[in-house]
């Protein structure tokens, strides 16, 4: 919510908890990550590029959140089920804020909706864009595979994203900085969770170790794409608003090396999945898996564009 003054208003304690937080013995004192944040677009950055950059980070979180949510009711046990759902929800929260920021920076990126549609801009971006307009990196698109593939992908994704968010927390865009500061705490836990399971699977049974080793090539085939700068990323980084992924490659490599080393797993270079027609996920060139994912994720919203949820 943005007031006319250009500052974000908190809706948390009053609206979501029903007015009087003292009714609740536990679970109060929620905080709106954007409360009081200056929402003006900083000088020296092209609003179109800022919007595109927010879509990149937001789509990564949205698509990966949906993939992780597919573990609901299917995880190895109840505790892991809840852990993966929590991680998915954290990422969904980041996606919502980032897509809303994209829409605020450039309303032109939001798909046109029928007159009278109550769909907010971030939902229109999530549920009414075709696959070629998504800017997510291809790492987050393929099916989950088994638990080992899930853990390896989560380790790579969260290590990469945490490094990006840590730098983004000092963005000149106050909204991006606040979203990143919130995300750092969340993704730190995701990385910790993935790292512990990586070690456990590697040092567990013969079965768990062989599955972990088998999970490395398909996941790390998208490694190079993560650290290849898109022109938009280069530009927003130069403007002090975004982060160029190539800048975090070295520190991500150090963290991964630590996890592999303590787990007794050797890291080999695996064949990389290169650009398609000169582009990758950031350009809207995706794997087939994304189309299937979106078909399922968007079908209900698209059938009821005037629906209220």
């Amino acid at each position, binding site marked *: 919510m943005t007031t006319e003054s250009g500052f974000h208003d908190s809706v948390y304690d009053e609206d979501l908890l029903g007015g009087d937080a003292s009714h609740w013995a*536990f679970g109060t004192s929620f905080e709106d990550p954007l409360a009081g944040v200056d929402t003006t677009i900083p000088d020296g950055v092209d609003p179109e590029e800022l919007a595109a950059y927010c879509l990149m980070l937001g789509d990564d979180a949205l698509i990966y959140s949906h993939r992780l949510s597919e573990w609901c009711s299917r995880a190895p046990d109840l*505790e892991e089920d*809840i852990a993966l759902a929590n991680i998915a929800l954290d990422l969904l929260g980041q996606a919502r804020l980032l897509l809303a920021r994209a829409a605020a920076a450039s309303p032109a990126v939001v798909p046109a909706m029928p007159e009278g549609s109550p769909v907010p801009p971030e939902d229109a971006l999530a549920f009414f864009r075709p696959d070629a307009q998504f800017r997510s990196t291809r790492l987050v698109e393929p099916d989950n595979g088994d638990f080992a593939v899930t853990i390896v992908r989560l380790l790579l994704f969260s290590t990469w994203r945490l490094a990006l968010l840590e730098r983004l927390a000092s963005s000149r865009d106050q909204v991006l900085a606040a979203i990143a500061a919130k995300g750092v705490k969340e993704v730190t836990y995701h990385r910790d969770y993935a790292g512990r399971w990586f070690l456990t699977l590697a040092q567990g049974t013969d079965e768990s170790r062989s599955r972990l080793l088998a999970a490395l090539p398909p996941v790390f085939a998208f490694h190079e794409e993560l650290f290849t700068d898109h022109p938009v990323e280069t530009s927003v980084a130069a403007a002090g608003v975004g982060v160029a992924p190539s800048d975090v490659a070295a520190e991500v490599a150090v963290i991964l090396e630590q996890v592999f080393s303590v787990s007794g797993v050797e890291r080999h270079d695996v064949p990389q999945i290169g650009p398609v027609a000169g582009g990758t996920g950031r350009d809207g060139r995706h794997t087939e898996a994304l189309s299937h994912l979106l078909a399922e994720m968007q079908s209900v919203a698209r059938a009821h564009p005037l629906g209220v949820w």
Partner: protein
Amino acid sequence: MSEVPEMVQDDWPLYEIFVRGKRGLNHVHVGSLHAADDEMALRHARDVYTRRNEGVSIWAVRSDAIAASSPDEKDPLFAPANDKVYRHPTFYSIPDDVPHM
């Protein structure tokens, strides 16, 4: 898969989880869960029992490490306290600004 390894057949041990809320002074039992070891029990407890901002501290204890009183001993253990009202400090006045009594 023909044979399931022994480790997979056995359930993980049960842990009892205690959470200290922001506004409470002591850890309170909130439930139980399964985990392979102590570290994982804390992580699971964080995921299962503190999702709604309930806690600032977690204790996890193996359930089989807890000594519990038996329902059969209820009378000898607790009934003798029934009529000893003088053990409550109700004969003192408590200042209004003393919380958590």
